[in-house]
């Protein structure tokens, strides 16, 4: 019983950090599907989102929910502007240029955050900090549970948005066939900027959900690397794949941290990634349809 409860706790904690990876991976995938660009600054956008929330909630003293909402909106607007002003210009350039540009942007964001918010870790009070919830004899931190619940709600909202609204379907259409979308009168450039906005907004949500568990600091963007593993695991280009990949990486990491010798925790995500790449190179949720002639 003792062991089962311990295991459940580890799984929940792992799933919680996995949800964060999954949300960042979701951002990777959304942008990749639409524009075939990989945004290596995704983790740093999460960091910016966290800091914006910190300023609004801790410094300005706004209500948590209002502050979180505004932080997401601001970060999303930032994502929109980033695409409209910078990244739109590299469409059509070699993949390498895009990689360098987004990596470089990541550096800029970190430096910017360091100058504005300093290099110390900060945190803010949330309704979930240091509270627990009892689930049939198992004690779980509300912070972890809130991450999982928040991720599920966000995914549900995104699912409904992409499948039920005209704008959401137009985003899918533009991702699947850009030229045909233009022919339909869909303003593809604006749609792509909106996809960047959604990715940035999702990253901000992840940053805010993460804040009761881990402090916000300039280097938290390196979570993006594990999230990248999660995205590849899920078969880069599949949205459910990104989330499942994230959760798998999170849980494996957590279990390895407990059962395996110290230090192995940080390696496991990559070991899982390697295993998947060898056994199923297209990823777990590859989406394949051949074009008919």
């Amino acid at each position, binding site marked *: 019983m003792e062991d089962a409860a311990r295991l459940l706790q580890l799984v929940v904690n792992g799933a919680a950090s996995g949800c964060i990876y999954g949300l960042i991976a979701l951002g990777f995938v959304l942008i990749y599907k639409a524009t075939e660009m990989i945004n290596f600054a995704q983790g740093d956008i999460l960091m910016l989102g966290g800091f914006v929330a910190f300023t609004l909630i801790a410094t300005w003293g706004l209500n948590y929910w209002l502050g979180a909402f505004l932080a997401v909106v601001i970060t999303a607007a930032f994502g929109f502007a980033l695409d409209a002003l910078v990244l739109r210009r590299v469409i059509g350039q070699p993949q390498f240029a895009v990689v360098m540009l987004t990596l470089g942007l990541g550096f800029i964001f970190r430096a910017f955050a360091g100058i504005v918010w300093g290099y110390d870790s900060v945190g803010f009070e949330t309704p979930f900090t240091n509270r627990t919830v009892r689930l049939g004899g198992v004690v779980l931190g509300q912070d972890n549970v809130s991450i999982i619940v928040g991720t599920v709600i966000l995914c549900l909202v995104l699912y409904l948005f992409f499948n039920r609204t*005209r704008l959401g*379907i*137009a985003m*899918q*259409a533009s991702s*699947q*066939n850009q*030229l*045909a*979308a*233009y*022919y*339909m*009168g*869909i*303003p*593809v450039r604006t749609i792509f900027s909106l996809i960047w906005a959604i990715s940035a907004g999702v990253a901000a949500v992840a940053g805010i959900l993460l804040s009761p568990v881990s402090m916000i600091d300039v280097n938290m963007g390196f979570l993006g690397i594990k999230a990248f593993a999660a995205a590849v695991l899920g078969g880069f280009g599949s949205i459910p794949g990104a989330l499942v990949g994230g959760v798998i990486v999170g849980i494996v990491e957590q279990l390895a941290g407990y059962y395996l010798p110290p230090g192995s925790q940080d390696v496991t995500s990559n070991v899982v990634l390697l295993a998947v790449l060898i056994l199923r190179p297209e990823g777990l949720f590859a*989406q394949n*349809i051949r*074009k*008919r*002639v």
Partner: protein
Amino acid sequence: MSATEALLRVANIETYYGPIQAIRGVTLDVNQGQIVTVLGANGAGKTTILKTISGVMDPERGQVVFEGKNIAGMKPDRVMREGICHSPEGREVFPFLTVHENLVMGAYSRHDKDEVAHDLEACFGYFPRLKERAHQRAGLLSGGEQQMLAISRALMGKPKLLLLDEPSLGLSPILVTQIFDIVKRINRERGVSILLVEQNAHIALKTADYGYVIEVGRIVMEDECVRLMEKDDIKEFYLGQKEAGVRGRRRWKRKKLWR
């Protein structure tokens, strides 16, 4: 044809792919209610003309005048809002969206909900197969069904001018006849003008009112389709009707007259 009543007038356009000139000064008119066809072999520049009209490619020189307004250089989504809908070569349907969603996307720029629903029914009327498959992913349709979808999707944009690029591509002869019958019905019943690009000269000349023949980026012949069909060169080089010479043999070295 008088210039004043032309719905679309393409005047002396020159279009390049990088340094390569694909269109070398093409002029053509589409009048209100007409079906106009552009015939030509592979690589003659037929598709490029359509792409230049719909704004995917910008002409280096020349004008594209639609309803008296120069639309050359406009972005494709703006051109579409002017009333030109494009059914591209190779169908280009959205493979992971359902047939119904594809059609809804065709009407993306429209806000008249009732009319959109009405047009959707009209499309299903033209192509009942699409109604049967309305909730299947477009990527799972057969080539013919995808072509029906591509035409219907363009129709959902409520075009004044419909650009059809190779609707016969890869389809069985019987399906080609069916689709062209419907293209003709769309033109007659809805008054949509159509600019049709085809390699299948036979069916295109039977369907269209007026035809242009294009070779290596230039228009080499134009006339009413009925008269085009009677020309020896068209018969020989596009319709494949062999003409026996004096000695009862085919003259294998006959040159095209326009060269």
